[in-house]
């Protein structure tokens, strides 16, 4: 396994990808799958960054405060996200499209505010209860948690991705997976087919939250420091752009999108401060010329056909006098 990873990284070296970069690419791939699940079901949710924060903080609580191993932190983080996703999803998933997006952005902001003020609020409550001033510092608000053990290994990430990819392919062929697609295509018709739309949407929202949380746990044990501003609106938009770049017609799309967008700043080191401009240009080019994303079998066929017919027309017009 180690030698395979070394080989892959040596191939990516010319693109500026080192092992740490590769690890973050894999984390992005997990985040891509997280938003893929909701988009595949027709839900425009931007809650992923918030659930990533929940995963990171609960995961770190398990590993750093309680001294548990990474896999236990992973389970704690994912379970916490799942439990929080239930009361959030039930009211919020009644909304659609842009309204759902706004509500889920709001959720992300709430998570941020809770993290920022958690210590102060606990201190205030304890002060009120005990009648004397109590100091309380646990998650350190905006300063963040430091010195997290670097437990995440490349092979864990790869194994996790393979497992999730396998589960998603099975999901797609199942009755539940078909319901997801039906809801995306036409929610009312799906309900008239006997599909419990509320149930399917909430389960998918929970699964998506768990994947985002897993990415949060893994990345926290790579960066070794977590601060709430790493999981704000910017992050939510980044995750969305993984799906936009890669496309959502297959689950490989957001993986490719996430890995590409994470590698791109490293690859573009040569152009230094214009990196953002290039990343934006790449994203724009994909939206204009490959509206289905980088990984879109049907779209690629269409584009090829269009190019071919364009050339045919060009040669035809030269023949006609």
């Amino acid at each position: 396994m180690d030698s395979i990873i070394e080989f892959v990284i040596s191939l990516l070296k010319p693109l500026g990808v080192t092992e740490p970069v590769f690890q973050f690419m894999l984390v992005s791939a997990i985040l891509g799958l997280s938003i893929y699940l909701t988009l595949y079901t027709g839900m425009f949710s931007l809650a992923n960054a918030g659930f990533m924060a929940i995963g990171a903080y609960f995961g770190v609580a398990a590993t750093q405060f309680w001294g548990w191993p990474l896999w236990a932190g992973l389970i704690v983080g994912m379970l916490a996200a799942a439990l929080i996703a239930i009361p959030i999803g039930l009211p919020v998933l009644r909304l659609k499209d842009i309204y759902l997006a706004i509500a889920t952005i709001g959720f992300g902001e709430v998570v941020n505010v809770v993290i920022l003020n958690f210590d102060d609020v606990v201190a205030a409550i304890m002060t009120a209860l005990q009648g004397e001033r109590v100091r309380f510092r646990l998650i350190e608000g905006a300063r963040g948690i430091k010195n997290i053990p670097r437990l995440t290994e490349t092979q864990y990430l790869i194994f996790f991705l393979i497992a999730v990819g396998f589960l998603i392919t099975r999901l797609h062929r199942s009755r539940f997976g078909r319901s997801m697609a039906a809801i995306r295509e036409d929610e009312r018709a799906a309900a008239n087919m006997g599909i419990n739309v509320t149930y399917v949407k909430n389960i998918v929202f929970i699964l998506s939250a768990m994947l985002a949380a897993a990415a949060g746990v893994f990345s926290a044990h790579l960066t070794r420091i977590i601060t709430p501003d790493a999981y704000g609106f910017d992050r939510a938009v980044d995750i969305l752009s993984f799906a936009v770049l890669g496309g959502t017609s297959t689950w490989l799309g957001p993986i490719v999108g996430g890995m590409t967008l994470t590698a791109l700043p490293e690859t573009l080191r040569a152009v230094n401060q214009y990196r953002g401009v290039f990343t934006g240009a790449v994203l724009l080019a994909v939206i204009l010329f490959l509206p289905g994303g980088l990984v879109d079998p049907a779209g690629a066929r269409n584009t090829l056909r269009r190019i071919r017919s364009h050339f045919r027309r060009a040669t035809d017009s030269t023949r006609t006098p």
Partner: protein
Amino acid sequence: MLELSHVTRQFGGLTALNDVSLSVPTGRVVGLIGPNGAGKTTLINQISGLDHPTSGGISFAGQPIHRASPHLIARMGIARTYQNIRLFGQMSALQNLLIGQHIQGRGSLLGAILFSAAYRAEEKRLDLRARELLDRFDLSHATDSPAASLPYGDQRRLELARAIATQPRLLLLDEPTAGMNPNETHALGEHVLALRDEGLTVLVIEHDMTFIHQVCDEIYVLNFGQIIAHGTPDDIKNNPQVIEAYLGQEDSNDGAA
């Protein structure tokens, strides 16, 4: 089989359905006609659970359904088609029919993940039945084509096949022949009659009087949200109130359409 008693549906100040009572007996094809805007589709929406009446009751096979969610109503055995076709456009015809059989499936997520024998057997059974339905409705050529790419007539028939795939006891058809030529309309009528002979009860909204005469045992006429007439197709054809609703007050002999 289906009973509506004093169903009223108001949207703000607009009364779309006003004290509508009607009954659809088991094993019969009942037509619902009326001018545009009379409230026909609103009525179908009340029955299929997409919308709920402001007052009044709907019961199906003796059970009240006017507050039930659409998926529960579907599970009780009511299926429908739509005035503007609502297929799962990007999915193949076959997949549309697999989703239509959602209620018949028992498959759990776990079974699918473990690829269990029961899961595979069920998928095979659903696939087989979907192909039978494609065959029955002359759609075999479209098995793997995305539904949205099919010709209009095929889409209409696929929507009917998808409704049948749910194995309903009551079928609601909302203008099934809209946009069809006379040949296609007649062929669709044959399908509806065959389904009735197999024991299905049908409530059909239609404008095409030839089709109504071909398939309906009885007709209700809806105008401005109220039932203004009820009877056999021949009764209705000569009913002066119906003629007035469609054509205004001038006398006419050539039918209600």
